[in-house]
């Protein structure tokens, strides 16, 4: 198994700084997600690990050996492209066999051996019956799995996937990412995948690397980055969040008339801050007290198992979002236009 070290990598495209001093360590056998909005540099980083781009400065090493100058084809990486990049004029079988067929004579397996290995891989991705089809005849999910089988055929030490589920519809995407997770648990190849979909990253990866504007914002387990976002960006990017302008003074954050205790800011004196509250961390109650904020229910959306409320604060036009379980919503029996009180169960402030 291979570990990957990325040291101080920079990459510019003209005036655009795609990667700005990125350092990252990927332990052997882990499945890591590079998560960020488009243009944050995640795909560039993936392509640099593969050797499809070269960094302007900095280095990449595999298992401690410097690989920055190593040619793509000597890096022993498997790469799954966003749009699969299957060879459209070859059958599925030949696509998967390609990496074995192009080997120099000395290391090329015999035809029988190639045949055996390809069928083994097609079995692994559960598509052995598609061997003599051509890529345009396959569905998106099938193409994705063939692309993966093709990448695995060369027995890569590292598997790199660029937006692996991006082009699929919602249902197939869910199935495939669980399948990828199981596959990884079987094969234990060090894997990196790029995604802009936070749900995908949180569900599949062992660790998530959140990136923005060419920089790493946070590295951590899915639980870590979701529960303890290190920066306002991570807070906003991972899931829905309500943003409040507040002032922090002597261990309390003040949002309108509401005062919430913020441990860790006991020494802060009257400083403006941004307070973040997740919609599902908001409690709704009928009676008000000093820990609550009076709001008006302006809209109610029932979406599957949850009910999403849009709430208006008296003096500001900003909408506050809250999420309730269907059960709790039933208990409260809320109607549109009603006045209720909200209490944040959990809140995080970032001083400005």
């Amino acid at each position, binding site marked *: 198994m291979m570990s990957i070290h990325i040291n101080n990598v920079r990459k510019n495209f003209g005036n655009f700084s795609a990667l700005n001093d990125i350092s990252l360590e990927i332990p052997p056998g882990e499945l890591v997600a590079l998560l960020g909005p488009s243009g944050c540099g995640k795909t560039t980083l993936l392509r640099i690990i*593969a050797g*499809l781009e070269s960094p302007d400065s900095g280095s990449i090493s595999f298992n401690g050996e410097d690989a920055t100058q190593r040619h*793509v*084809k000597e890096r022993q*990486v*498997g*790469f799954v*492209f966003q*749009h699969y*990049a*299957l*060879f*459209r*004029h070859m059958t599925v079988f030949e696509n998967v066999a*390609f*990496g074995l067929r*192009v*080997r120099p004579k000395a290391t090329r397996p015999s035809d029988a051996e190639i045949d055996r290995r390809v069928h083994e891989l097609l079995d692994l991705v559960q598509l052995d019956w598609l061997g003599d089809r*051509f890529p*345009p*005849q396959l569905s998106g999910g099938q193409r994705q799995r063939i692309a993966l089988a*093709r*990448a695995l*055929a*060369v027995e890569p030490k590292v598997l790199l996937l660029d937006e692996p589920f991006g082009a699929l519809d919602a249902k197939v995407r869910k199935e495939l990412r669980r399948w990828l997770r199981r596959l990884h648990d079987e094969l234990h190849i060090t894997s990196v995948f790029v995604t802009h979909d936070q749900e995908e990253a949180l569900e599949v990866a062992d660790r998530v690397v959140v990136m923005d504007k060419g920089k790493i914002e946070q590295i951590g387990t899915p639980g870590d980055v979701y529960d303890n976002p290190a920066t306002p960006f991570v807070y906003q990017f991972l899931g829905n969040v309500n943003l409040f302008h507040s002032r922090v003074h002597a261990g309390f954050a003040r949002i309108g008339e509401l005062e919430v205790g913020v441990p860790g800011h006991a020494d802060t004196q009257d400083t403006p801050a941004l307070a973040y509250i997740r919609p599902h961390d908001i409690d709704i109650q009928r009676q008000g007290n000093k820990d609550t904020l009076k709001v008006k229910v302006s809209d109610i959306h029932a979406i599957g198992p949850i009910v999403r409320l849009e709430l208006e604060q008296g003096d500001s036009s900003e909408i506050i979002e809250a999420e309730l379980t269907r059960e709790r919503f039933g208990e409260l029996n809320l109607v549109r236009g009603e006045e209720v009180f909200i209490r944040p169960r959990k809140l995080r402030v970032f001083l400005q």
Partner: protein
Amino acid sequence: MSTKSYQNKIANSRAIAEPVWIRWLLIGGALAYLGLFLFVPLAAVFTEALRKGFETYLSAFSEPDALSAIQLTFIAALVSVPLNLVFGVSAAWAIAKFNFRGKSILITLIDLPFAVSPVIAGLIYVLIFGLQGWFGHWLSDHDIKIIFALPGIVLATIFVTFPFVARELIPLMQAQGKDEEEAAIVLGASAWQMFYRVTLPNIKWGLLYGVILSNARAMGEFGAVSVVSGHVRGLTNTLPLHVEILYNEYNYVAAFACASLLAFLALVTLALKTLVEWKTAQAQQPELSQEST
């Protein structure tokens, strides 16, 4: 886009359908125009050529000057087409797969032969290699003949035909992107293996189409070749030039016979072109053709 579904769209669209008489008027007008300007001259070439019988027609080709003209035309095409093939593929590759300074200048330069009159193209070579030209003295001192000789004819032919292959391939390769090539390299293919196993199969029909067009132009070119050839009978006359000479000598049957050979080559080219277009359309939508089986 698939031509098939596009055609279905046209056939199914009621909204833009014209009344029957307008449709017939448009179709009839287009056919009459084509007939007058394309079909009648083509028919005339063959009737004039065969006016004095098949024997006389054939004898036009057995004449040594005619044979040498045919030979010269084939040599010019045989040299220029492969050179343009190599150049066209390299240029299209560079333009479609890389970003570099001066890319737009290169694209414009490739179009230059379309914009410049072939006569001017010929004159440029006379100016450069002719006896009064830049390299004229040096060339005559070393006893190298370019103008009024085979090299000049080949140069002029290359000049007028070089956009065809590149022009055909650039949009095709741009549309295909470089993902498949990158995939091949990541899987361990060498540069040559990548080109031969991945790129070439993807562009083969476009490439063949470009070669056919390039060849047609190479064999039919008159203007540029006329300026650099010097019209030496049996030595530097290509087939189109030979036709002109015969015609000017009132040798109509022979002139039209040779012209009919060129016309025949053009027809074969058209047939090949249609075949390739049909194949390309098929290659672009294998899902349609194979799903129906």
